[in-house]
């Protein structure tokens, strides 16, 4: 885990490199993409690497950097206690033995079913595509995974400040996030606004 100081420096660099784009205003589709990306990040099982296999990325769909960015690792109010870097890191001595590749070789289990072999494993998107295909042949009125999804609400949404979480009335002109006060808008601009867009 990098130190906050380093993180700050990296942030600043990013700011500098993206000054040209910081004046742009996100259009509706960019905002929608940003929301979608955020919602996808809420499906993640982990936001860090497998501690036993430091070099391999386990989930191929995982784009660590982007997730980390979109969720923003920066504490808005800069509470001092988070400046220790990774919080909750106990002082318990970790076994710093570098696990050699040979000894760390994962136990291979032999199954007779293809699904147990990684290359035959289908991810959910593949399965859903197949399902859509097979349902396309069936009658249209049959219910399936896709058709039972809840309809949009007909009530207006409750608007919560993206910074403090209280009710908010204002929308950031640039990115569309919500804020409740000038104070929160300032924090938003310093921490999130446009910094984590695609």
């Amino acid at each position, binding site marked *: 885990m990098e130190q906050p100081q380093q993180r700050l420096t990296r942030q600043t660099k990013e700011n500098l490199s993206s000054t040209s784009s910081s004046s742009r205003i996100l259009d509706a589709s960019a905002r929608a993409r940003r929301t979608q990306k955020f*919602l996808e*990040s*809420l*499906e*993640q*099982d*982990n*936001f860090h*690497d497998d*501690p*036993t296999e430091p070099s391999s990325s386990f989930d191929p769909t995982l784009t660590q950097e982007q997730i980390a960015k979109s*969720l*923003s*690792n920066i*504490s*808005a*109010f800069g*509470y001092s*206690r*988070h400046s220790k870097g*990774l*919080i*909750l890191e106990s002082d*318990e001595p*970790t*076994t710093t*033995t570098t696990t050699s590749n040979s000894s760390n070789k994962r136990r291979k289990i032999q*199954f*007779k*079913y293809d*699904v*147990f072999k990684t290359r035959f*494993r*289908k991810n*959910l998107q593949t*399965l*859903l595509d*197949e*399902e859509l295909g*097979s349902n396309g042949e069936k009658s249209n009125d*049959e*219910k*399936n*995974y896709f058709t*039972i*999804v*809840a*309809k*949009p*609400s*007909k*009530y207006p*949404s*409750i608007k919560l400040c993206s*910074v*403090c*979480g*209280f*009710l908010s009335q204002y929308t950031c002109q640039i990115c569309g996030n919500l804020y409740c006060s000038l104070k929160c808008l300032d924090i938003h601009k310093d*921490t999130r606004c446009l910094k984590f867009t695609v």
Partner: protein
Amino acid sequence: MTTKPIFVVDNGAYMSKSKMNTTDKSKIIPNCIMKSKFYPRRTFIADQIDNECPNKTSLYYQLPFQKGYLVDWNIQKQVWDYLFGKIPFKTTGLLMTEPCMNLNFIRETMDQIFFEEYEVASFARYDPATLSAYQYEQDMKSNYVLVIDSGFSFTHIVPFYQGRKLFDGMTRIDVGGKLLTNQLKSVISYRQLVVMNETYIINELKENICYVSLDFQEDMKKARLPLSENSNSLDYILPDYNEIKQGYVQSSSTSTFNGNIADSSKKNLTKQQQQIVRMNVERFTIPEILFRPSIIGIDQAGIAESIYNSVEQLPEHIRPSLYNNILLTGGNCLFPNFKERLENELRSMIKDDYPIRITLPENPITYALNAGVTLTNSSDYINYCVTKREYDEHGVSICHRKFTDNP
């Protein structure tokens, strides 16, 4: 045939709930494999994490399910092997749940694995809502039930008539416990402490202190009050797994003392080491997502409105019977006020002369499991399951036929 013991598993994306139908002991274990940086040489399968990994910091999760559907069979098999232990499947049947609208590939793979790999004496798979409906209709002597199953991956609304799904009224809301925990991690990380890697700890926090608001505007007002008068704000001490084994709410005597944490820290040297998060609006804005997914940008109606939409899809004469037989299952129903909020919101939407009766079972998490046990002990279970002999004769086609026609 039906006198054989049956092992019943409600195979959730988060927790596996199981029970032998001949005993009273149920087993609830995480349906996943976990890794800890403190033990880099091993993995923890299911509840090994409770017994063999005292430090739950930064656990790395490998879940067999993705968005509620089984996709990683390798991980799942390891948990199943661990769970099944020495169960003699030659003489034991298996009833296992599958998600609503399970995908055909997953169904067929399950059928094959259990008959050919585990060689179970008999097998049946139904979704948890179907099992719950079976139990409810029996207990309440009702022909109708509207099952709400709000779990880890999503929330389903499934109306039943005499044990059969009324497909026109089925709805899925893509909000479940996992999303709530991740959103809570995200807001705490942004506002206070970086906890993105602390799924275990923040999930525990969520279960300990979050609640469903009964009056959102009013609760917002209360949360705005200064700390000395604010009964909503709580300081929650995160576990460090050295001295603090479990997260807890700092006693009100210290937290309401002008909120002066520094003062109390003099008495206790370890206070400085403590990681504290102050939970205020988050306590009720997180569960609020179940009722208003639009808060975080999901363009779907919440639970109450979706129930209304579901029931409105069905013939008018059966609507009162459905509103009068709502059953709550799944872990999210355990948030305080969940049932009351649902009732209030439904009341404001539907006709005054429609009665509303909502049942929150004593344990909404194990309701489907116990319902499954009831089903296996019924005299006509033979019609619900496929025996090894039937499978050998007809193959997967008989599974498809029996499990979709029934009940």
